[in-house]
């Protein structure tokens, strides 16, 4: 059983290592319009990259990202969609509303302690479940 779970873990890590990470500082998208921000992020994801954005998107940008993703799933045969995760330090026990308010406030100010991970669906889900995998890759 232990062996199986170790193999499973190894397989998952391999799956993540098959992709490349792209770190985007918030300053790189700060001056872009909503259309250009979403376009830039989706272009990277379509290039099989997991995007790590310092900061977080505004809620209207998140919904636009979902909208544009669906248009792409409809048109691109191999693209199944994205997984979107916002990781905030020490926020596990905070309410969604608190995170949301904090998120809206910090994005209006143009910075946030949060990081947003956007990538091909299956991969980001794995990172969200165990953020240490990200540390392994970065470290």
């Amino acid at each position, binding site marked *: 059983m232990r062996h199986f779970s170790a193999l499973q873990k190894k397989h998952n890590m391999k799956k993540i290592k098959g992709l490349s990470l792209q770190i985007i500082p918030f300053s790189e998208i700060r001056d872009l319009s909503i259309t250009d921000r979403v376009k830039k992020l989706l272009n990277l994801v379509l290039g099989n990259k997991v995007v790590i954005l310092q900061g977080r998107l505004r*809620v*209207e940008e*998140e*919904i636009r990202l*979902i*909208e544009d*993703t*669906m*248009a792409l*799933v*409809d048109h691109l045969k191999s693209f*199944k*969609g*994205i*997984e*979107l*995760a*916002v990781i905030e330090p020490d926020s596990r026990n905070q*309410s*969604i*509303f608190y*995170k*949301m308010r904090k*998120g*809206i406030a910090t994005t209006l100010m143009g910075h946030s302690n949060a990081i947003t991970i956007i990538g091909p*669906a299956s991969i980001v889900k794995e990172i969200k479940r165990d953020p240490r995998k990200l540390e392994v890759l970065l470290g």
Partner: protein
Amino acid sequence: MGILKRWWGSFFGRKNNIKIGFYGPPNAGKTSLANIICEDWTGESFGSISEVPHETRHVEFKEKVEIKHKGKNLTLKIVDTPGIATKVDYEDFLKFGLDKTTAKKRAKEATQGIIESIKWLDDMDAVIVVLDATQNPYSQVNITIIGNLVARKIPVLIVANKIDLRRADSKKIESAFPDYEVVGISAKKRLNMDDFYEALFRLAKKA
């Protein structure tokens, strides 16, 4: 648009046909709940339900649903929307026994349905967000949906559905959204519908 309509309504009396949208992730029970309301007050069903995700793939609505509850009256336009998700994979539908062609067609329609749902957000006077009480409420899709409603200043009621199931935890949904009214129901078994209708009247007042 919604804000303007609410402002207009507050000056010139109550709106008669409040547009209430049912939003949420796929398979949370949006259509099941819309069906109950319509069956109770119009005698007709709303849409088909299924255990296969993305059964509702087009926005559907029912005009002038008159609800009479404990001496109060309310007329609604009920708008049932396809579940919002960040990914749609036709292979997920194969697990439910669908053939490849049907699954691919369903996936295509589901993606278009999600786009349609998002486009309708601006048109709502109030929204009922239906969540599956057996699932973790801390998902980015839930945060994105509620966040967009907050940004548009659209009144929200959260329904924690499927409370009849053993794994259901409506308290978790309450603690995730402490600033919103959360009503736990089972649309399938029609549990706690009295509380739901009470909450619906409170929501309509804010619209």
